[in-house]
């Protein structure tokens, strides 16, 4: 077996099983199981959380693991960092590993920030001397200069996270594992962390990055692996894998017809006015088939959002709608959306019959893709693509 260079990760056919007992094993169950195990050799119920995972990262490479909750991302990181062991297969990692799996787990609430920096640093594999040398720098980075002598239990969660991340940021390992830890930080600090991760990668550290923030995944990693149901369903260049993942996730959440409103959504169609793909700045045609038990006079809204209930824009139409099946068509002009995936939210409000029942509650009914120009390079420090596309003409004199 050839030895890998420092910072390389090679994983072959890794399997991991977890216990999946239905109850806490009580004495009676234990005995029953013991009796069974004499015949079969199986002591516990279990389930596979990772199945036949293969992946490779070169020294200095960057790999993202994406997938929904419970798909095995964190378990894989734990196996790579040897916190837990695989049930089968081979996992070969060379060099010093810095695993940032949870920022607050190493932090002791009773100790002061300073004491915690020494504690967590040591636990993460930093020598005491190194910590002493870089202490001031770390406090500066975390922005905790006036809180560092306070007990950590009086910190906010965000402050604890900053403390934890800072220590990891100064680790300088050969392999850095980062697991969805930036979620609690404020936007400013998140930006700072992502930038720091970028710097660490530039210095030649191998990065394994887990996040649900697909924009930051695309910005930091060259390659990606998509885990679904314990299996690595796709691997390859980040952009393509993320694209597949987005398509699958949103297929799941496709048309959710709500029964709560008076009006029922039967069918939704979205297309460009010229019949092709929806593009930035093109006109967009939305066609909804609806059903109402009675004629209505109402306000009809259509909103477009990216994920959240907070819309990026809303259009409105006031008018009369017939009883029974009817169709609403809306043409939106010069839709200023940048490349990405968006959802359509219709809503109706008015005064007809329903007695407290909304006519049509504000809810996403469909998602659609917008094609548009790519900004491959973003300004230094900006990690997330803007949602709005504005066409521009330039001139330099």
């Amino acid at each position, binding site marked *: 077996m050839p030895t890998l260079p420092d910072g390389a990760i090679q994983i072959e056919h890794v399997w991991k099983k977890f216990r999946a007992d239905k109850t806490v094993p009580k004495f009676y169950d234990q005995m029953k199981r013991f009796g069974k195990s004499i015949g079969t050799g199986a002591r516990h119920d279990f389930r596979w959380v990772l199945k036949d995972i293969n992946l490779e*990262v070169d020294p200095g490479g960057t790999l993202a693991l994406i997938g929904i909750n419970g798909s095995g991302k964190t378990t894989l990181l734990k196996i790579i960092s040897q*916190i837990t062991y695989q049930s*089968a297969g081979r996992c070969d990692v060379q060099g010093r590993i810095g695993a940032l799996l*949870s920022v607050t787990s190493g932090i002791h609430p009773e100790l002061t920030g300073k004491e915690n920096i020494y504690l967590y640093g*040591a636990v993460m594999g930093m020598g005491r001397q190194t910590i002493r040398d870089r202490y001031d720098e770390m406090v500066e980075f975390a922005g905790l200069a006036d809180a560092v002598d306070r007990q950590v239990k009086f910190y906010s969660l965000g402050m604890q996270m900053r403390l934890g991340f800072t220590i990891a940021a100064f680790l300088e390992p050969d392999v850095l594992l980062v697991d969805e830890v930036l979620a609690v930080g404020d936007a400013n600090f998140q930006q700072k962390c992502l930038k720091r991760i970028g710097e660490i990668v530039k210095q030649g550290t191998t990065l394994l990055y887990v996040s649900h923030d697909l924009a930051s995944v695309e910005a930091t990693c060259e390659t990606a692996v998509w885990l679904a149901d314990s299996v690595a369903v796709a*691997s*390859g260049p980040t952009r393509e894998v993320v694209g597949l993942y987005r398509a699958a996730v949103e297929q799941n959440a496709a048309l959710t017809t709500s029964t709560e409103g008076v009006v029922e959504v039967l069918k939704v169609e979205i297309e460009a006015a010229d019949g092709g793909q929806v593009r930035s700045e093109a006109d967009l045609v939305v066609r909804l088939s609806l059903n109402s038990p009675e004629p209505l006079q109402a306000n009809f809204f259509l909103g477009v959002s990216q994920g959240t209930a907070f819309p990026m824009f809303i259009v409105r139409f006031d008018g009369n709608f017939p009883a029974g099946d009817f169709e609403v068509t809306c043409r939106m002009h010069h839709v200023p959306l940048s490349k990405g995936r968006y959802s359509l939210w219709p809503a109706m409000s008015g005064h007809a019959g329903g007695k407290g029942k909304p006519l049509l509650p504000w809810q996403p009914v469909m998602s659609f893709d917008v094609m548009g120009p790519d900004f491959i390079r973003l300004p230094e420090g900006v990690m997330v693509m803007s949602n709005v596309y504005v066409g521009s003409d330039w001139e330099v004199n």
Partner: protein
Amino acid sequence: MAAIASSFGRTLVETDVSSIPAEPSQDLIYRHRVRHFESARALWSHRDIIYTLAERDFRAQYKQATLGILWALLSPVATLLIMIVVFSHVKSFGTEGLPYALFAFVGILCWSFFSSALGNGGQSLLSNKALMAKTQFPRECFPLETMCVNALNTVLSWVPLAILFVIFGRAPAITTVWVPMYMLIEVVFAAGIAMAIASIIIQMRDLMQVLPIITSLGLFITPVIWPFSRIPSNFHFGGGIYVHHAVVFGKYVPSHWVGGFNINLQMVYGFFNPLGPVIDGARRTMLLGFAPQWNLAGIAALGALVYLTIGYRIFKRLEVNFADIA
């Protein structure tokens, strides 16, 4: 550095999920092999973590107490005061001419290290499970770290012992220099048991409930408040005829056994419970000024090493699952 010669990640590859077997083939099954030499080296290179964790626990223990670290001194003094009051009139169990308070306090100091090392060490994995599930370093650090904290606490509680010496107008004998040797045996013994308990408690929390019962029982079967000499060094075993002392042909013949054989129960006890010789040794050297009984010290050291080996092996054996089921 040479890159891995493979095309992984260069192009989009979608896995055919149906091609994945239901279970891994037998030759892939991971076997956790413990290389003791490498484990020891890893532990040595992570010794900083042991100090740091010990420092954390020691500091955290008195944080937010107004008297702070003073409590490390005050609580043994309080124990001492209680003992002086309770035992000042007790004259049970021959104490070889020693004031009973002094006699018992040495025993209790040794015992309290052991019982708290067992308690804290045994729960060390459980109480650090958040850390254990997210960070990677040798797991032995946790029980060993609690040994350090307890040792430090115990050293601090030797201070009231000095007060006791003053009260009784005595001074520790020159042979006190042997006490650290006994303490080392005790630490080895406690570390072995604590490792075993810590790794078993993770799987079987029942032990957590049973542990205090066992320790309180241990207090009485260990020569803490009674002298070790209570255990016969020459115990007859295996039958035979007991001949009473008599004067035969003008010569005094003491009572003795004919047939069977004699065993030194102290040695047997010392192997299974190294604390016996340890406490006895500490008393003999510090209070009475005798040299250590080497045969007892040796058998205790041997016993302690056996416990350490067994404990360590159990720990390493169960280590694979720690992060998963903690």
